[in-house]
């Protein structure tokens, strides 16, 4: 038996996944700007991403949504670029530009022909340093953002329910607030708020430039030195990362919305990965979550959906690369004849089983092999590669730790999985949310 496991583990690591990625090349400039490059010369394309250590968590109460509003304003012109010109220039070189904001970071990215990287870095540095922030643009953009909120949240019962559930789950941690902002905050924001946010957070020490693709590191380094590297160094403040008080017992909320079918979701605050400190435990929680929700043989699907018929779809998720903590979640979508009570009961019974019975060798090996294979498949996309580098960097883990995480996954034992589920996935630490369909006349 141990030999079999050993062979499986060896098979696991014969996967050339990790080695197929080129080594990361890094540089840090005097003003704090960081550059990370992964060269890949297989196609004449490059992905440029500018990562900022600023997100929803850096907003003050009453001003939620500001980091995201800011992201929109980055497309509204700067000293040298008219509103929309940035996008037009990127478009003219065949690129697509976009951006995203989360609680932890903001990232701006472009996919472009590789020979235009210098030009794009110049454009990015220009808007980063010299943004216009005109009130008339803000007044239009805030309306656009309210439409975005209506579309993504207000008119989507599942997402609306998750917003309420997150807010109920945490008392201090900023993951309790929606990144897009509460509607009443959006209505109250002003251009002055946006300007203050810019001054405080868009400083060189918060920026990481990630380039993946058909580029030469030395050349990109020179370009970044000439652009981002020239900005004046400014102080950076420590980020808001409070210690969430431990829960004292299960919480429940009910969200009544116009909807067709009920949904039940549970969240539990769990730790995130801190390299060298909790590798074994957090990798075990990630493997446990994969056993529950990943691949064809996921236990939630197999046992709760296919066998017990408690829901028509069910899943779970854990992000070990969050900041401070992660809100682990599981949910079930219930069909017309299925009840939230029965689903909930079966779910906790399944988790109890994972606490008392070690996972068998084959499913454990399959979970690990799939998690590592997913890394190889992700190498297929420049976007995902750059994104992984960027987010590990700005969350404080460090992009150079990605192989260490895969090693940790490979080392997880059945006992580790059992221990992680027992320690963290407890009913007493959970918040349960129930979406109750309400018929609107």
């Amino acid at each position: 038996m141990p030999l079999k496991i050993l062979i499986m583990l060896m098979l696991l690591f014969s996967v050339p996944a990790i080695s197929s990625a080129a080594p990361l090349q890094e540089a840090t400039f005097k003003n704090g700007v960081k550059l990370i490059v992964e060269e890949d010369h297989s196609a004449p394309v490059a992905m440029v991403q500018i990562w900022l250590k600023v997100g929803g968590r850096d907003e003050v109460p009453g001003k939620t949504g500001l980091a995201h509003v800011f992201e929109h304003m980055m497309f509204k012109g700067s000293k040298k670029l008219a509103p929309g010109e940035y996008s037009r220039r990127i478009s003219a070189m065949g690129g697509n530009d976009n951006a995203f904001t989360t609680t932890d970071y903001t990232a701006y990215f472009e996919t472009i022909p590789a020979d235009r990287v210098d030009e794009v870095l110049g454009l990015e540095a220009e808007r980063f340093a010299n943004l216009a922030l005109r009130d008339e643009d803000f007044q239009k953009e805030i309306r656009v953002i309210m439409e975005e909120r209506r579309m993504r949240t207000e008119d989507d019962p599942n997402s609306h329910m998750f917003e309420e559930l997150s807010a109920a789950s945490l008392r201090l941690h900023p993951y309790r607030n929606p990144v897009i902002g509460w509607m009443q905050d959006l209505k109250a924001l002003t251009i002055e708020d946006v300007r203050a946010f810019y001054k405080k957070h868009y400083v060189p020490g918060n920026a990481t430039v990630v380039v993946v693709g058909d580029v030469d590191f030395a050349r990109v380094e020179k370009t970044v030195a000439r652009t981002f590297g020239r900005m004046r160094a400014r102080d950076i403040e420590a980020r808001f990362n409070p210690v969430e008080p431990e829960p004292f017992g299960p919480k429940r909320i009910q969200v009544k919305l116009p909807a067709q079918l009920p949904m039940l979701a549970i969240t539990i605050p769990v730790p995130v990965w801190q390299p060298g400190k909790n590798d074994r435990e957090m990798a075990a929680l990630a493997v446990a979550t994969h056993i529950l929700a990943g691949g064809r043989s996921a236990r939630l699907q197999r046992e709760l959906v296919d066998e017990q018929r408690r829901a028509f779809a069910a899943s779970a998720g854990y992000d070990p690369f969050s900041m401070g903590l992660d809100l682990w979640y599981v949910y079930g979508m219930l069909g017309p004849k299925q009840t939230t009570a029965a689903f909930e009961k079966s779910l906790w019974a399944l988790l109890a089983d994972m606490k008392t019975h070690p996972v068998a060798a084959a499913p454990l090996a399959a979970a690990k092999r799939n998690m590592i294979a997913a890394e190889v498949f992700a190498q297929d996309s420049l976007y995902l590669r750059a994104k992984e580098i960027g987010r590990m960097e700005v969350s404080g883990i460090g992009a150079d730790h990605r192989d260490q995480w895969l090693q940790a996954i490979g080392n997880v034992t059945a006992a580790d999985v059992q221990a992680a589920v027992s320690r963290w996935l407890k009913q007493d630490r959970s918040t349960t949310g129930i979406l109750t369909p309400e018929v609107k006349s």
Partner: protein
Amino acid sequence: MKRHLMLTLLLPLLLICAHTARAVPPIQEATMANGLRVLLMEAHNVPMVAMQLSVAAGSRFDATGKAGTATLLAAMLGDHSARHDHRAWADLLDADAIHLGAGASRDDMSMSLTVLKDALQPGLDAFAEALLTPGWNKKRFTILQQDSIAGARKELEDPGAQAATAAAVLLYGDHPYGHRSSGTVTSLAAIGITDLQNLYAKQIKPKGAVLAVSGDITMDELLPLLNARLSGWQGAPAHDLMDITPAAVVQGKTADMQLPTSQTLVQLLRQGPARSDADFFPAFVLNHIIGGGGFGSRLMEEVREKRGLVYGVYSYFIPLAVPGPFVITLQTKADQAAEAESVVRDVMQQMADGKITKKQLQASKDNLSGSFAQRMDSNRERVGLISMIGLYHLPLDYLATWTAHIDAVTLAQVKAQAALYLQPAQWNRVRVGANLGSSTGK
């Protein structure tokens, strides 16, 4: 929080592609003795292989009142086989990280495989087993059907899904394109396992089918592996992919769906070009200019950038065996819907009247040509493009010559396409929202 998620959703629909010969490895072709066309593009940078089999067995073959048949068949084929029940099957796939998927669109049904290079053999074994030896387990059929029905019921909450359901009926009526591939609560309930078996027996055949492959493999390696597994698959489908007549054209029709949302979704629709249309490229560039090009497009500029009325407004057409839908869509809070629609109609009218500048045309061409490489940037994207080329009998140098085709589009051609497609009166409308009243937005 993506700034324009819609665009990312849109790209696969458009099947945009092409340019610079240096960026396009050749598509290699082989035909197996059973008639299956194999198209391969090699890519050796990541140790993986992706492939997709496309067969003329899409939702247009669903019997009347049984929308969702092809989709359910795809789900059944992927779920288990004659030799492995769904449990053993799931364990077998997961043991080697074999990603096996299946689905149906209007024209075709597809089965896809993504594997690490070192799991190619078991991956192909599973692929062939799913395709050639269906299990037809009745209990599993009932479960998949019930869960699909629940999913369709849940979709009644989703404005986009509701619009798509209404749009298919409005635009195509009784035509085979007149329903969504996923089916509805009622149509899914009407399907029996024999409907799936009939479709399988009639249409899942190698002749006319295309296997598109991209990844760390050569044709010399691939063919023996395929021959060993697929040579027993024989026959021709009852209906060829191109064996379909165009739908009757409708114009000026409207449909409203009530949904208790704060926004109203407004969708304007008509038939667009078929995949084989001689003026495909001018029409394609036209769509990019009006609403397919994201932030550079006329609609985004007028409706979002200038007026702040929407988060997203975009256009696309779906080129199929015969004219598929051409769609312009937006969502905005209910009391702005009429204004937004009227801005869209103004833009359409202006363009139909020939108000398109050389500069706009050049900007669209630049973006389309320059963005070729990134659209080809992963194995799975390449497989999608190669499938389309094979399925619709496009030339194998389609990708290599794509930029030249885009560059060759003239302003006169785009204006002619605008006059042909963008007359507002020829469009139909679907709205989804609360208290829609009778406002026309004109």
